Each structure stands twice: as C-alpha cells, then as structure tokens.
C-alpha cells in the first residue's frame, strides 16, 4: 500500500474520465488495472493504491510522480526543501511544512485543501489553485471569494483568521491545517 502524488489525465468524458496517470491506465505494469482511491486537486491528485513492488518501482522512476514515504516518518531537515519544492511545483502551497511534520500530517493538509477546492467546484465557482496562490482575498473575484467562504462553512472550518489581505496560499494553509487534527479525511489509511 502506498500514497502517490500524480498528474491527472483524461478528458472528463466517460469512459475517459479524469483519473491518475499511470495507475488509471492499462499500460504495463498496470495492464490488469489496480484498485485505488483518488483525491484530485486541479491537475494533480493524491492516490492511495495497493501497488506491487514492480508497480511501485515503476512509479518511483517517473519524473512526474511523487512517492510519499511511510506516513509516520517525519519530513526531517534533510528532506524539507525537497518536499516544499515538489509540492509547490504542483501548485500546492507548502511553505508551512516543517521538519517535524510527519508525512501523514502533510498529506492530511493537502487532502484537506483538496476537499475545500472540491466544495467550491460543487458550488459552481471553483477556485483554481494554479496562478492564484499569491493573490490576496481582496484580489480574487467576489463570487469566488464568497464561494470559498461558503465552502469553508459547509466543511465546518474556522475562517476567523482569514482577512481581506490574506493570500490564497495562506487561506488554504489556515483552513487545510484544520484537517491535520482529525477532521474527516479518509483516503485509504490517511
């Protein structure tokens, strides 16, 4: 069992649904398919899958796949910049990550951020992350701002720390960190 961060492929039109690259396809070594759970976040997603040793090694060799280390390992000083840079490269805010966070902590926050984005999508005003992370709340369109607030309320998140000058990056951190403490994230064993 492993967690991966992978690009999303597909057109979104059934049966070419949006799905995780490699794991959602039938090319070797996934020709027989593989059970997985998938949490999409814009053009990237977190996947929990029961991969074989061969499949895990295949994924680890792909430059666009991040294999998540054992969940209870700490990020540690030696990996901190790598983790931050790789998440940021995927348009996932990551400057909040510290060496003492476990990968479980990190992934819970990332999946929590994704859940918040999902709500805004369902409300018809999806807040896209790429290109918007460094905008302040008073710089994003009012309808998207309202949807983000509504989404936070639906999820029961405390948004009292968010002001007009809070950046989207910071908003996602403030709200996403509330998932670290036990709010409902049930992607695999996460």
């Amino acid at each position: 069992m492993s967690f991966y961060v992978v690009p999303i492929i597909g057109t979104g039109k059934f049966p070419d649904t949006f799905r995780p690259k490699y794991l959602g396809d039938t090319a070797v070594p996934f020709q027989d398919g593989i059970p997985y759970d998938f949490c999409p976040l814009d053009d990237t997603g977190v996947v929990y899958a029961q991969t074989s040793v061969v499949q895990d090694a295949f994924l680890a060799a792909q430059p666009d796949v991040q294999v998540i280390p054992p969940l209870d390992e700490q990020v540690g000083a030696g990996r901190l910049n790598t983790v931050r840079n790789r998440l940021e490269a995927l348009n996932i805010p990551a400057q909040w990550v510290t060496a003492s966070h476990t990968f479980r902590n990190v992934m819970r926050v990332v999946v929590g951020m994704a859940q918040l984005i999902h709500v805004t999508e369902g409300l018809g005003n999806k807040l896209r992350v790429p290109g918007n992370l460094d905008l302040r709340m008073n710089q994003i369109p009012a309808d998207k701002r309202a949807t983000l607030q509504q989404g936070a309320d639906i999820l029961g998140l405390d948004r009292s720390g968010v002001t007009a000058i809070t950046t989207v990056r910071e908003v996602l951190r403030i709200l996403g960190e509330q998932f670290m403490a036990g709010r409902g994230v049930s992607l695999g064993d996460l």
Partner: protein
Amino acid sequence: MALPATENFAGAAGALGGSWTQQVTQTINKNGSGLGTTSGADATNGASCYWNADTFSAAQYAKIKFQSGAASSAYCGCSVRATDTGTTAADRYALLATGSGTSGQTQLIVTVNGAATTLANYAQAWSAGDEMYIEARASSILAKRNGTALGAAITNSTLTAGSAGIAAAQVAGTAPTFDDWEGGNLPRAYVFDKGSAFNRGAVFAGALR
C-alpha cells in the same frame, strides 16, 4: 410521495418520466420486459436520471439490481446527490459496473458539470441480481455490493446535495440492463456498525489523532 422511492421498470418500453428527471441526452428507459436500460449509445455522457418527486436530505442512498453489462462498454449503476440537466451541467456521484471483475470495470465516479472523475476503482465482478449500493453522508461516499463495502469510504466534498437516481452508460453496442431501484434518506440515528460510512470516518479520524 414518501421516501424511500422505488422503481421496478414495469410497463411499456420508453423513457422514465413523471417522477424522474432525465439528466443528459440518452435517457434511462424501461425496456418493455420489466427491466431498466438505456435509450442508446453515447460514448461520452452515458445516461442518467434522478427522482424528482421527493426532496432528499444530504445523507442519502440509492441501490439497484445489476442485470447485465459488457466489459468497457455497458455500465449499470445508481447515483446520489444528482442535480441539474444537460451534458455540461449534470452533477452526480455514481457507482457504475460492467459485471467484469477486472479493475476499472467497477468505478465510483463524481461528475461535476458533465465532467467525470474516477474517485475509486474496484476489482469486483457482478452477477445478475447483485445489489449495487451507493450512499453519501456528509463528505463520505461509500459503495457496496450485496451489503458489503467495496472498499473504504471515499472522502469527497464536491457535491453536497441533490437526489438519488440511476446512472448507466452504453459506450457502444449492447445496452446494460438493471432492475429494482430504490432511493431514500439515510437514518438520522447512526448505527454503530463498523462498515458504515460514518463509523469508517470516525475510526480513521480517531486513529490519526
């Protein structure tokens, strides 16, 4: 009417109407022999409809009996939190299966504004008469076959309300068939069953504190 709502597909062949709202171009039909089916092939949008005669709570379920499908081509299924109509507006969570036990032939899908994302893939074979079941409770989406969960509940917050319904897809060739749909609200009182979506969430949350 009162929930749970039911549909046995009896009657003359044709699209479900009345208490049903068809969501996309191809419709969910009665086949004239007591089964449900699709009106025709649509390689990209499938067919789906939802019950419109009652208001569902956010915590809801749908179930249907699988009758026949075809690998990578004809999918049976049921849906929850379905809303809106049109190929670029329809929303739903759906459990779809062709009957084949190969991974990818049973999928849990969220469709938002007509765009579908596979949230989970299962390697699960289905036989005629097997009960397909999907429930949504808060952010937890759970699929079952004959009362047994296909996997852990999926957490997804995209769709927060809507109606229970039927989802199917005839990509080409053979049409799927299905029978005995039911949709309703989940009970308010939580049943302390380890398999329920609520308790799965609670177990996961507790384990991670």
